[in-house]
């Protein structure tokens, strides 16, 4: 009995095995504890470490759903005037701006750009939005400068609060 017309049993088995391997690879990359350059043959995006203590959501969830959260938040912000909320783009940029370029999308290794180049998905956000944090945002990580952060924007204060939690 042939499983599918036009395909041999062996080729179907091989395809199934390939599928299994790919699925395993996907889950492994999604549930990995920390993103890093893979030692293996599969190339992985280089992801720079963030400034804050932890992300607003589980990284696995964020990897798949950040676009939905941002899209929802953008309407709340533009139309409703709710700024500095949990999923604000400014919040993302505040934590994820590169230590070297100060941006999330300037160099190809910067946080947003790195994955988007890897996945070949173009981001339009930074054609209008600044890819760098607001003036004082997260650029003064030393504890001596913390009192100066009282006058910064609420979304930046969120970042500062997160940092204070860190021992």
């Amino acid at each position, binding site marked *: 009995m042939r499983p599918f017309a036009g395909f041999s049993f062996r080729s179907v088995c091989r395809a199934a095995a390939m599928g299994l391997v790919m699925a395993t690879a996907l889950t492994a990359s999604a549930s990995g504890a920390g993103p890093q350059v893979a030692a293996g043959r599969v190339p992985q995006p280089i992801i720079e470490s963030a400034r804050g203590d932890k992300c607003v959501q589980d990284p696995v969830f964020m990897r798949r759903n950040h676009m939905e959260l941002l899209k929802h938040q953008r309407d709340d912000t*533009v*139309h409703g005037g*709710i700024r500095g909320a949990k999923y604000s783009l400014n919040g993302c940029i505040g934590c994820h701006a590169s230590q070297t370029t100060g941006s999330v999308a300037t160099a190809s290794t910067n946080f947003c750009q790195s994955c988007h180049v890897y996945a070949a998905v173009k981001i339009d956000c930074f*054609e209008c939005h600044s890819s760098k944090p607001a003036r004082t945002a997260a650029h003064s990580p030393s504890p001596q400068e913390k009192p100066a952060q009282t006058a910064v924007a609420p*979304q930046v204060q969120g970042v500062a609060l997160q940092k204070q939690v860190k021992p």
Partner: protein
Amino acid sequence: MTQDTKSPSIQPPKSTSGRRGFLSVAAAGLAGVMIAPGVRLIEIAQAATADTAPSRGASSKVRWGMLIDSGKCASGCTDCVTACNTENGLSGETRATDSQWIRKIEIKEVRTGKTQSLPMMCQHCAEPPCVDVCPTGASFKRADGIVLVDKHICIGCRYCVMACPYKARSFVHQPLSNQKADVPRGMGTVESCTLCVHKVDKGEMPACVSACSDAGHGAILFGDLNDPNSEISRRLASYPSRQIREDLNLNTGVRYSGI
């Protein structure tokens, strides 16, 4: 997969059969995938209410407006324009293709020769023609009366630019870089005075208002037109003021006195 199979509600009773074991693990995986988004949504809903401190948002109880006293506005002073450019990251150039959110105009009474100076920008109409004509809904009025462009939706047709009787809107012709973090701007969209909405949401004054008072003129008063006890409402109630193009019956949020 290991994460999904840990879920106690989904885990079936211990099964020894190979095929049944495989099926139950597969089912657990599937159910885990399906349940996870639901759980996340609840988490999101809870987090949204108990967040650190986002701004409260625009309320329809408030209507932001300005009262500009052209008697106090000094001829030749462009501090409001400069402050606007700095705050919003505008180039400040005045070529035909450059954005201009606020400009100073001089008016002259022909018979007497009396000149007056006043700033002109988006008048934040209660009945904005730009909103009426927008084909995509990008041009909109916020609950607190601030008229804005949602640049995520704007297609750059410039119908609103044509419709505005105050010539308040500009179109961005060139690719931009180094925008301000709070003021996203981009090529192919229309923009205009936002009443410094990012500052207003934080409880601050628009940049032009602060600059005018810093310059010692204090010609621009900003406040809530809906609150009868606000300074702006009391001034409007006790002194004569005008809307520009009153005949259009747009109920502007920016009022002028002394013209």
